[in-house]
């Protein structure tokens, strides 16, 4: 890097003397032909400054000399330091920033951008760094000085009509917030996909930000461990966006598919319930863009009263929204044992997303692929009096493995009263026996809805008396 950097500088210096202006790689390309004995020149550079902005570059001693020779941006600052009057001479800092304040290799300083405001971080050789917003000080305030009271400085210093913390000796790097952030780079390539009753559309974040449905308002969610997070979110109103393609009704099902494959379905009634606020597709939080995780888009509810939702209802990393009208059927699954818990469709779907298992089931004329989650994980809701999934810190496992190994009966009960009784020892850690929610990629049919007990035909640990159960609505643990 240094070799290229220096040869650019030497080339530029030579060409400026000849009345030619150059920067960056174009100069390097020309200088490479013009310069011989580069290694000798490389060692001659006294210093160089790393510049980061809309483009990145190095600014070396010879670049400085070349710009100084034009006399255009070389100026003087009289300041008081430690009770003494000092005179510094140097290049206007703005002339150096002009090299990186846009992505073109030109030297025009963008005064409008400076006034609008971006951050500049000045870093010294010893690591000291100070940051200012250009909107807070005049573009003429600071210089990159090479002399102090007429004596040359070994390395340039930033100094001028600005707070003393911005007077940085032995400057080693100048970075601006014009450099695209990692999030911004990733986000610029992101688009939200909609598939609404067969109609397809896509929006970039830039498009969503300009959308009339964009709002900013406070919202909050509470995790299952009880921690509440309240922030100001910016995003587009979900109902308003969907309404461009459909009439949202209470019976519709709106499925959010995340970048990592996680899925969650909202009933239309949830989106229509605007008593305490509006559901939005949020991509800003407290003024900043959300990073890829939990963004770029997440669902939250916002409103003047800072509505609070359960954390698991806020879908993170939303990539795609699929709507099929009027096929949403909610259900409840009740688990009893040392404690009782009733979970809804969204929670079961969340279990499937996080602990997804697919089995090839064959029995009595049925041969199908079912998707769901291992039955033994559901036992965690009722296997001890204190802990249930996501109700405590991650250091405590809600599933009581010791109890399962000790053995208790598990009754899987259908809505018509049909019951299958199993032993927890056969279920413990067994991923081949699942509560299935999907059959061949779609929701199970009415004859099986909402959940079925199925297993993989090649399961290695299968209880001898296991039976297929459909329409499961409750599970009882008998200790």
């Amino acid at each position: 890097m240094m070799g290229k950097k220096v040869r650019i500088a030497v080339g530029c210096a030579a060409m400026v003397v000849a009345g030619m202006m150059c920067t960056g790689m174009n100069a390097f390309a020309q200088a490479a032909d013009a310069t011989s004995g580069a290694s000798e020149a490389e060692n001659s550079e006294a210093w160089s400054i790393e510049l980061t902005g809309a483009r990145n570059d190095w600014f070396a001693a010879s670049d400085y000399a070349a710009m100084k020779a034009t006399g255009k941006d070389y100026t003087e600052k009289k300041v008081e330091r430690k009770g003494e009057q000092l005179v510094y001479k140097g290049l206007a800092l703005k002339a150096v920033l002009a090299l990186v304040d846009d992505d073109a290799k030109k030297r025009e300083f963008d005064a409008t951008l400076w006034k609008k405001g971006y951050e500049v971080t000045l870093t010294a050789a010893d690591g000291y760094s100070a940051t200012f917003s250009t909107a807070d000080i005049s573009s003429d305030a600071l210089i990159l000085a090479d002399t102090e009271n007429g004596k040359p400085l070994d390395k340039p210093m930033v100094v001028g009509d600005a707070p003393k913390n911005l007077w940085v000796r032995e400057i080693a790097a100048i970075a601006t917030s014009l450099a695209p952030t990692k999030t911004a780079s990733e986000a610029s390539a992101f688009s939200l996909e909609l598939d609404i009753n067969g109609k397809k559309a896509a929006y970039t974040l830039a498009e969503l930000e300009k959308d009339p449905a964009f709002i900013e308002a406070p919202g909050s969610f509470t995790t299952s461990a009880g921690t509440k997070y309240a922030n100001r979110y910016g995003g587009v109103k979900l109902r308003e966006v969907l309404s461009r393609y459909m009439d949202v009704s209470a019976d519709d099902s709106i499925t959010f598919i995340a970048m990592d494959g996680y899925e969650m379905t909202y009933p239309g009634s949830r989106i229509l319930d605007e008593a305490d606020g509006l559901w939005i597709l949020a991509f800003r939080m407290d003024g900043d863009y959300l990073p890829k995780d939990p963004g770029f888009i997440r669902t939250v509810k916002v409103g003047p009263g800072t509505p609070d939702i359960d954390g698991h209802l806020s879908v993170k990393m939303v990539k795609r929204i699929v709507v099929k009208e009027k096929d949403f059927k909610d259900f409840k699954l009740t688990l009893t044992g040392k404690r009782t818990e009733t979970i809804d469709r969204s929670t079961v779907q969340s279990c499937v997303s996080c602990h997804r298992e697919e089995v090839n089931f064959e029995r009595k004329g049925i041969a199908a692929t079912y998707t769901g989650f291992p039955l033994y994980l559901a036992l965690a809701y009722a296997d001890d009096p204190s802990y249930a999934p996501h109700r405590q810190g991650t250091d405590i496992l809600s599933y009581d493995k010791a109890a399962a190994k000790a053995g208790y009966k598990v009754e899987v009960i259908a809505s018509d009263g049909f019951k299958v009784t199993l032993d927890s020892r056969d279920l413990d850690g067994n991923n081949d026996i699942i509560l299935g929610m999907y059959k061949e990629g779609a929701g199970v049919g009415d004859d099986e809805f909402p959940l079925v007990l199925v297993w993989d035909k090649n399961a290695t640990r299968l209880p001898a008396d296991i039976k297929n159960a459909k329409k499961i609505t409750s599970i009882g643990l008998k200790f």
Partner: protein
Amino acid sequence: MLILSILVSLPALNGSPILGALEVRLAGQALPIPPDSELRGLLYRLSIDDRTEQAISLAELIPPLADAWRVEAWQTGNGRTDSATKSVLWSAGDLAERLDRFWLIEKPGGTWGVVFDGKTLDGVGRIDVTGEHTEERPPEIWVSWEGVKELKKEIDRWSRLTGVKAKTVDVPDVRTKLLSVQRGGGRMPDLVMIQSDDLPALTAAATLQALDGMDSSSLVDKGRNAFNLKGRNWALPFYFDAQLVFYNPKLLSTPPAKNWDLARLEAESRRIVRTGRTPLAWNAYSAYWILPFALGFGKQAIEDADGMVRPDDMGTRSALAWLLRMRDEGLMAVLERDAMIGRFASGETAMILTGSYSIPEFERIGIPFGIAAYPTVPETGKPVAPFLDFKGLAITRSSRSPLTVRRLASYLTGPGVQQRFTSSVSKLPANHEAWELVRTTNAYFPQLERSYEIGVTVPATEAYSTYKNIMWKILRFVFAGSMTIDEALGEARRLIEANLKQ
């Protein structure tokens, strides 16, 4: 330019001067400072010239300065501040960075003395400081881990005395949030608490500014090393925790001596197991708890000369063989944290290994316990070397208040805060002077001091992170008996090298 004048009036009372109200003037204007009664309460113990004094630094009583180049202390007589009879002058360009070492000392009879740069003056009535404000916005500080309440109290104390309205935020996972905010282009805090193994990620993302220019000579070497990466200092060590043996005093025949060894530990364990209890338990699945034993059994260092962390050395083999034997003979149970703590609390297990961070928690819950530094391995004569887990104070690269938070960081790592904070949370200070001063106020000092002597810092390298993650999985196979020690360590080495090549 500002001239700060600290005026200590000494009115005569029955012929004896008393410590009077302290007046601070800024550009001729008096600044509000605590009344005398409160100021006395702010003094703390300090060892100066082998004497223990009650003192406070000048930096704690004035706003943070960008520059200071002249300090003059004046003696006064009979309470008259306008008739100074003698003064001492300090003149240097770097005084702003060093006023945290300018001590105001309470002298007999309630008078003030000052000590700085080898010069002293007693009977001081006024101090003039010539300097310039930092002109920075109020800083935001992110704090975490144990003792947040106590730390906030210290920052509030500094804010109140210096007039800087610092905002302190409790952030459970500083590294993740810092990187997330930076990635999103959000507003960064100015000062953050980090731990040493945060450094690779934070320096790679250019999140922090190097603190090479800050004087850290009063801080302990192992702490400074913990935050040094590639030759640069990235944080000031603030405090540290050490791995310790926690024991139930009712279940041990005698408390472990300072220089106890594994033979004594084993003998005690054999006695305890006959009572039906489990003598020992800890999470031996973790490299964090295995490496200290490997070092005790002869591993030369955690990192080899080339920076790699290799698992298949003789020290690690011997350590694992010893641990397996202890487990197989029923003297030790391999338990993860919750189970280990639960059994220790119930009196079922006699000794566990955990960090000094457990001390306040056990005291609060009321679990009977004693602590001991790690024992020595008789075969090698080397101690099982506890990990020292340092927490430090780092400044973000994009800070708008870099000078203000440098002054704050100096205050927090100074002897006053270090004494108060670490004693209240049973940790050891990172400051040499405070180290000696807490010797009598921290009940666990001897064991913690011994742990520091024999301890090693957690490496802040990618190689260690990779080693730790792979060993976490491999050690389970060893304890499950599905791999021999040699097979497991050979496979671990292959995986570590493959991961680091990626």
